[in-house]
């Protein structure tokens, strides 16, 4: 087959009057929709999860503030660790659903394929960076507060080596290490989650001849 036969083959293939395969889809009805049923359903699922986690997170925060600020409750490490882990879990799940929803709803259809791809890539990069910075600030702040409170409780750095601490130093060190590594773990998890999307964008960028100098990369 010759290269020029392709157009002929394409034309011949479309000469026959085929029935409209999408006759069931009404243009008028579609115009009143935000998304089709399938995508709407998927987005609703994510929204529902996001709302659920956000509500649980708010309840958790209110309870924590009530217990530690209003009632001035003093809990042992054994009780604090699971409470902290529950809060971290709720925060991570809520933010990851929020990020997923933000990525899925970003579009730039009126631009050329190249500009649209680059615009989406920039948005994806911004969303991922914002998520990472938020987690970084939050968990590093939490680590700082934990160290500060510990030092206040034992009466300063000079007592660090002594046995005056309410919590052994190694336990605190493990907790701090955990808190400091969470943002990086989230970054790693996000890279895994968006791997397919990223590789698709990379392939598109290669096809569209996008260079570093074009921006968006």
């Amino acid at each position, binding site marked *: *087959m*010759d*290269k020029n036969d*392709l*157009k002929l*083959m*394409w034309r*011949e*293939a*479309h*000469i*026959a009057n085929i029935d*409209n*395969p*999408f006759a*069931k*889809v009404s*243009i*008028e009805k*579609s*115009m009143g*929709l*935000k*998304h*089709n*049923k*399938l*995508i709407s*359903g*998927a987005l609703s*699922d*994510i929204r529902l999860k996001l709302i659920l986690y956000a509500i649980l997170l708010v309840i958790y925060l209110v309870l924590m503030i009530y217990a530690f600020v209003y009632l001035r409750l003093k809990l042992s490490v054994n009780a604090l660790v699971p409470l902290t882990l529950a809060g971290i879990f709720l925060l991570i799940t809520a933010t990851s659903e929020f990020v*997923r929803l933000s*990525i*899925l709803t970003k*579009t*730039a*259809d*009126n*631009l*050329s*394929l*190249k*500009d*649209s*791809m680059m615009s*989406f890539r920039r948005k994806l990069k911004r969303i991922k960076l914002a998520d990472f910075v938020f987690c970084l600030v939050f968990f590093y702040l939490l680590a700082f507060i934990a160290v500060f409170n510990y030092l206040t409780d034992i009466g300063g750095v000079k007592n660090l080596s002594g046995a005056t601490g309410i919590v052994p130093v190694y336990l605190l060190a493990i907790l701090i290490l955990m808190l400091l590594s969470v943002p990086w773990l989230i970054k790693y998890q996000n890279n895994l*989650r*968006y791997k*397919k*999307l990223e590789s*698709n*964008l990379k*392939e*598109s960028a290669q*096809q*569209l*001849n996008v260079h570093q100098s074009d921006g968006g990369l």
Partner: protein
Amino acid sequence: MEKEFIELIRRHQGILHKICNVYFLRDPYKEDYYQEILIRLWKAYPGFKNQSAFSTWLYRVALNTAIDIIRKQSLMPSHKELSKLEYNISESKNTTDSDNRDKLYLAINQLADIEKAIIILYLEDYNYKEIAEITGISETHTGVKINRIKTQLIKLLNHGQK
């Protein structure tokens, strides 16, 4: 504006059918994706400023939407990917119009997303300048790209494998 849009879409419906066939050939959700393209076209319609032909604008938005749907499929909760290996094009034996069409679509379906967009525009008789305008790549590069895709497509049609 609504009536005008409906009329224009009815007139250019064939373009949308071709795009859906190229991108979602054997996808069970083809109809849903067709509807999503319609919805996104209507949303983008206020941005159509008659600077280009309606069909050119239609191609740009519809191709962007189709590629966007494929790109984001992995993030959808109900994601179900169809293996590209399902499309074994060398099995066709009859040479009727319909079979030729299927054979051609099956071959195009094996190309990368952007290559599909370029080849569909080429087959629809768009010139390099228009293709460059829709895709965003330079005219020179468009020519090179088309030649490469055509060679690849011929290979696929002759041998059925990438």
